[in-house]
């Protein structure tokens, strides 16, 4: 037997007499694999750098509205459909896979203040500046048919927001007070109010479906119970809350987007203090939406950027901005946890990746295994200063960068003043 034949067993393996594989014998003895930690560290460093190299989140811009986009709604059953309402009363339905508008209808005269889809996905509701609530079919009208709402309700005051119940045929509007409507009736089932000022937004809780939360102009957030038809609790903040969003995984957590540049995550049971204050925006936060996993949320702000925050951290993990994007009015996180949509003042809706360096499409098993390995390495070494520095690095536009610096100086000054007062009192 010559040496060449003996060596063949280390090179090839014959499976089932037909497939020839290259043999890769392994020996996991740690003496054969020295420098385990420095090599893993180097791989983690490379993985972090590559993550920044591949971080290209912007996918496309949906063009077509003739005035600023005021509100958006997700289709509950279709991942590729999204609805948007503009400031000239137009409502457009978009197909995200083709990135085209598939239907346009003139819903209101004046702003479309709010819109929401029914839980079954067959119709949607819009409210506008012309004091009406309209219900429309989700399907496009047949050839020859005109765009007509299924149902129109005329109200006495302007409605500023609408939200539909997650399970029953009930929806709530807000304006002067919070009205809860049955779909078949033309007058509200009950009207709830606590305070004297107008209410800007209302949201139903997706898990405890009889709960509602609303934000009013007198800086408060009120929680209502639909079963008892009463307001439950109220928390008053320093500045007005623009919108709130319930956590789809934790029934009692909601996040409020406030005018004082922060977002507050509250636990419904202990409204005395927020669970977390999320600080990173440099201008009023206009909209917030949770990811379907309930672990992160995205916020849209007047400072022309959107930020993605983890629920348990006080600072954002990601900021998305473009030179062309002006004040972002509304933001949505798609139900497959992969994309973020934002509608802004300059008539465009932009589609972004939720995970900036994620590779879209079907991944080969080796690719997936390599990505999982890199992810685990990044997590293992995330606290090392060099890796943390690279992972944290985001390029900010000059306006936001200067504002952030200025606000840091202001915050330091306030804190120093408080500390001096504290010291001098003692």
């Amino acid at each position: 037997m010559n040496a060449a034949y003996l060596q063949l067993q280390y090179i090839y393996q014959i499976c089932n007499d037909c497939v020839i594989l290259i043999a890769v014998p392994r020996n996991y003895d740690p003496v054969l694999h020295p420098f385990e930690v420095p090599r893993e560290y180097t791989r983690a460093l490379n993985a972090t750098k590559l993550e920044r190299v591949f971080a290209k989140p912007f996918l496309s811009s949906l063009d077509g509205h003739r005035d600023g986009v005021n509100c958006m709604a997700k289709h509950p059953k279709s991942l590729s459909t999204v609805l948007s309402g503009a400031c000239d009363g137009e409502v457009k339905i978009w197909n995200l896979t083709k990135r085209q508008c598939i239907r346009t209808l003139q819903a209101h005269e004046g702003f479309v203040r709010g819109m929401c889809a029914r839980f079954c996905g067959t119709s949607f509701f819009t409210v506008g500046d012309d004091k009406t609530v309209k219900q429309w079919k989700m399907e496009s009208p047949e050839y020859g048919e005109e765009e007509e709402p299924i149902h129109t309700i005329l109200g006495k005051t302007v409605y500023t927001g609408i939200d539909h119940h997650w399970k029953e045929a009930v929806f709530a509007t807000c304006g002067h007070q919070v009205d809860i409507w049955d779909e078949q009736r033309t007058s509200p089932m009950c009207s709830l109010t606590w305070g004297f000022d107008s209410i800007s937004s209302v949201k139903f809780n997706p898990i405890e479906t009889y709960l509602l939360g609303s934000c009013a102009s007198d800086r408060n957030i009120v929680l209502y119970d639909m079963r008892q038809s009463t307001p439950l609790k109220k928390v008053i903040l320093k500045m007005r809350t623009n919108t709130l969003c319930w956590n789809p995984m934790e029934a009692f957590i909601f996040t409020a987007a406030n005018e004082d540049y922060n977002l507050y995550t509250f636990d419904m049971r202990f409204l005395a203090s927020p669970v977390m204050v999320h600080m990173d925006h440099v201008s009023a936060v206009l909209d917030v939406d949770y990811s379907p996993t309930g672990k992160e949320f995205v916020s849209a702000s007047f400072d022309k950027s959107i930020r993605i925050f983890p629920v348990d951290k006080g600072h954002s993990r990601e900021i998305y901005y473009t030179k062309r994007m002006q004040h972002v009015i509304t933001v949505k996180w798609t139900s497959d946890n992969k994309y973020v949509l934002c509608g802004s003042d300059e008539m465009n809706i932009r589609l972004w990746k939720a995970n900036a360096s994620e590779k879209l499409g079907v991944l080969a098993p080796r690719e997936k295994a390599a990505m999982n390995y890199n992810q685990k390495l990044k997590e293992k070494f995330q606290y090392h200063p060099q890796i943390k520095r690279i992972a944290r690095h985001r390029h900010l536009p000059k306006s936001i960068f200067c504002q952030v610096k200025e606000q840091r100086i202001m915050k330091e000054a306030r804190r120093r003043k408080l500390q001096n007062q504290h010291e001098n009192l003692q």
Partner: protein
Amino acid sequence: SHLKLVGRQEELAAARAARLDLLLPEEPGFLEADPGEDTCTVSQGDIAAAVDIASAAKHFELRLEQFGPYRLDYTRPGRHLLLGGRRGHVAALDWQTKTLMCEINVMETVTDVAWLHAETMFAVAQRRWLYVYDNQGVELNCLKRFPGVLRMQFLPYHFLLATASETGFLQYLDVSVGKEVAATCTRGGRLAVMAQNPANAVVHLGHSNGTVTLWSPNVKEPLVRMLCHRGAIRALAVDRSGTYMATAGLDRKLQLFDLRTYRPLHALVLPQGAAHLDFSQRGLLAAACADVVQVRPSPSLPRKPYLCHRLPLPAHGLRFCPYEDVLGAGHGAGFTSLLVPGAGEANFDALENNPYRSRKQRQEWEVKALLEKIPAELITLDPTCLDRVDTASMEQKRQEKIQRLGFDPHAKAKFRPRRKAKGGSSAGSLLRRKRKVAHEEQRVRSFAKPTPFAKPAAFAPFAKPAPSAMPTAFA
């Protein structure tokens, strides 16, 4: 907690990897003598006659009397051999199939030869400068910044070639980018004895005053200075796992040191003194005393060697071949390949070093190895220090935070027992309640104590590496 979960996962992974040892295909070799006979009396001819023909072919002798005593080096997978004769003869060959890759005469004195990361390039330390050649004998580089090199060691995971010169300079060359990473004046005289610790890439140098110094490219002073012998050091070797160091000196002693404590373990008196030492992968120590090569198992180091062989002329180079039971000896009359059963690791890991790799596999491995190249700043005595919490800087940060805020946010308020009714607040019950919580205070205080060893500045690229703790050990 999360840390406990991660720790448990790592333990499970280690246990699972250890269980896979059952699947290893090969067993290591061995030599057993008949009762009444010693293994050291068994000759190479007897061993070659007893094994199969493929293994017997691994024992051969190259008679090269013309070009001076030979130094040698094996590649890391153990497939290719590099020979360098003092009078300029350099040859690279695949020693198992006996195919010659190149054979040149560099027309200058050759002091040492070393393979670089793969069998495509090697470095030759010639009398004036350091040269890098292709495996076809084409000269690739002449490095004039490396004059008078006597010994070379290649650090494979850092892609660094460490060279020791006759003027006492220790220089590191990064072969992937071609830059000199560090040049240290060791102030130890002529550096003719050099070894590397494969577990932490620290270079060991032996000096003529009997001391062994340990060097890292980041620090200008030696990390450790050990007094090992009463005369000059003649030979040095460090075992694969980085736990033992064998030294031989002019006082004819062969000492074995534990590198974790820097204390001597065994001493052996060799009548002629060893001029060359090498550890095999399975812990056998080969010592060349003049023209006799003796192989002993370490760390026990018995007086009677495991194997013995007499070379035609005194040895000038001694290397075990990785993954093979073969010991290569370069001497004044050429090169001899000796069979040492049980020397090499029987089961290789194909993703680390594969002796049977094809050209494509080698190319893929080279790319991956370059991507994973460890930066030279991470060379320290303890390679796992990156894994640990840096308690010194954590303490410093905590002090800074206390200074900045004016109070300690993590400090627990002193325990004041609540007032209870119906005699529950009597002195005795108060004391009882305080005693229950007393141990917690003790635990907090012991955590805040600073560690006894100052760690070397492991990785702070924007800070100058500080001179680390230099424990000096005396034999």
